[in-house]
């Protein structure tokens, strides 16, 4: 099974319901897929629905016609929604656990440290059980044997590479560019199956962009992972992306890079 997500032929989305389609895939064309180990780039003029497409892939929006399949499980089929399909929606929620999304505007909680916001991405479900917060013993034990320290060290090393020398500093002290950088680093640090990134290289220094590209290539290499990015800069597209989706006049055209 190579496909993570498939958009069916005849897939379309519009905010108003029927007409005014923002995204459309012609009925006679091939289904659009996201496969493991590949990097996808979305390009198109401003207002052509790039972010909307990302929202659809993220499960925030439902298609107006057609359907999306996650791991070959059909979901969100508006025209024939049955009890069975509602069940698969729940499965999709589980799947979406493995998706990380980079928003255009960096969203960071102001009252936690840089290191904490990195650790937030690689979450340990057991640690986050609410009942654990009643149990100081467990916390003390964890502080003593430092079992989870590998994550922390890894995050610190990654931050150091991008000149965040003091990881315990609060997010509120960062500039806009640094905030963007942190949100991109969160993506790299995560262990998600699919990264959806809205303009990852905007507002970031060129040297860092090179490093980030290498790290993202490493992120998917040999693993069951893939990346979708929106990018305006054609140079970034050329040397980084495997498959280009071009959005013009609501239609999506798929093209291999190179």
């Amino acid at each position, binding site marked *: 099974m190579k496909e993570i997500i498939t958009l069916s032929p005849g897939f379309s989305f519009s905010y108003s319901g029927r007409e005014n389609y923002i995204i459309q895939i012609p009925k006679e064309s091939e289904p659009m897929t996201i496969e493991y180990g590949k990097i996808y780039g979305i390009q198109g003029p401003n207002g052509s629905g790039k972010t909307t497409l990302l929202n659809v892939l993220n499960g*925030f929006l439902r298609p107006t016609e057609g359907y999306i399949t996650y791991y070959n499980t059909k979901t969100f089929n508006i025209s024939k929604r049955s009890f069975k399909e509602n069940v698969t929606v729940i499965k999709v929620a589980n799947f*979406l656990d493995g998706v990380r999304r980079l928003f255009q505007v960096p*969203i960071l*909680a102001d009252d936690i440290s840089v290191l904490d916001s990195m650790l937030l991405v690689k979450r340990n479900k057991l640690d986050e059980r*609410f009942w654990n917060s*009643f149990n100081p013993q467990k916390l003390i034990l964890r502080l003593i044997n430092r079992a989870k320290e590998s994550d922390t060290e890894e995050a610190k090393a990654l931050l150091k590479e991008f000149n965040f020398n003091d990881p315990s500093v609060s997010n509120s002290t960062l500039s806009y560019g640094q905030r963007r950088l942190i949100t991109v680093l969160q993506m790299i640090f995560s262990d998600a199956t699919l990264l959806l990134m809205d303009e990852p290289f905007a507002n970031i220094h060129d040297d860092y962009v090179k490093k980030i590209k290498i790290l993202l290539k490493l992120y998917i290499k040999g693993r069951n992972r893939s990346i979708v990015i929106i990018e305006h800069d054609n140079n970034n597209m050329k040397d980084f992306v495997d498959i280009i989706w071009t959005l013009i006049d609501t239609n999506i055209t798929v093209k291999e890079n190179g």
Partner: protein
Amino acid sequence: MELILSLVTKFIIYSIFLISLNNLMIGKSGYWAIGHICFFYIGAVVTGILSVIYHFSASLIYLTFFIAPLISSVIAFLLSVSTSRLKGDFFMFISISIAILCNVAAEYIAGPSGFSGINRPAGLTSDISILSVSIVFFILTIIYVKNFNRHPLNRIYSLTRTSEKSAMSFGINVLRNNVKIFILSSIIASISGILFAFYSTGTDPQRFSLNEAVILFALSIIGGIDSIKGSIIAAIFYVLVIYLLDSLFSGVSDIYATKIASLVFGLILILAIKYKPNGLFGKRKI
């Protein structure tokens, strides 16, 4: 001596309530729960109902420590489910309305002057014993909140407060987390209400009105949101100001003491928002 004992007991009980409001409810979930006082009231009134209406015996009255938190957590659950629809001021409104409805319902059950003559439970008949139980509970609450602040959960709530959408895209179940923190803080608030009812052996509706809700809410902003030190200082301040106003106007009229208190705290709330949005010890702005 008796005066100091009563002031200290009130201070401890109000600290517990303020910590549940300030450090758990507002501090973690980020919702402006002005009506949080209804959980305090539920604790007190349920104790009154069990003791005065159903005549529970001195040992059976311990059941109130289960029943009152249960009722308040049901209401907290309903309230927290509404957060999936209501944001900001809408939530504030619903929270206030629920507090008002609880108040009216309690007036319907207990009459306009509230319950009086609540039995203290066996083993807790003296003021000192109630004070010591309150202190134990107070210390446990503080330890728990401090523990929570170091826990990985803290950063999850932090992100959720900043942006629910972002939190959802990180795979965080926002609604479930809200339900948990609402129920937890309501349970702590209702236990402080039970202690208050046992201490004062009555439920004076004056102490649970909307005015009082605003005063306590203003106090948590003055002390600084999500600051334990702030909550404790605010509780001391509250107990002292109420004591002073009560003794100043004790002969004149009941209205003056409560109304001047709410006037003062209302003004302090506005001025604090304008000139000191961090509060005394808080790091977070309103």
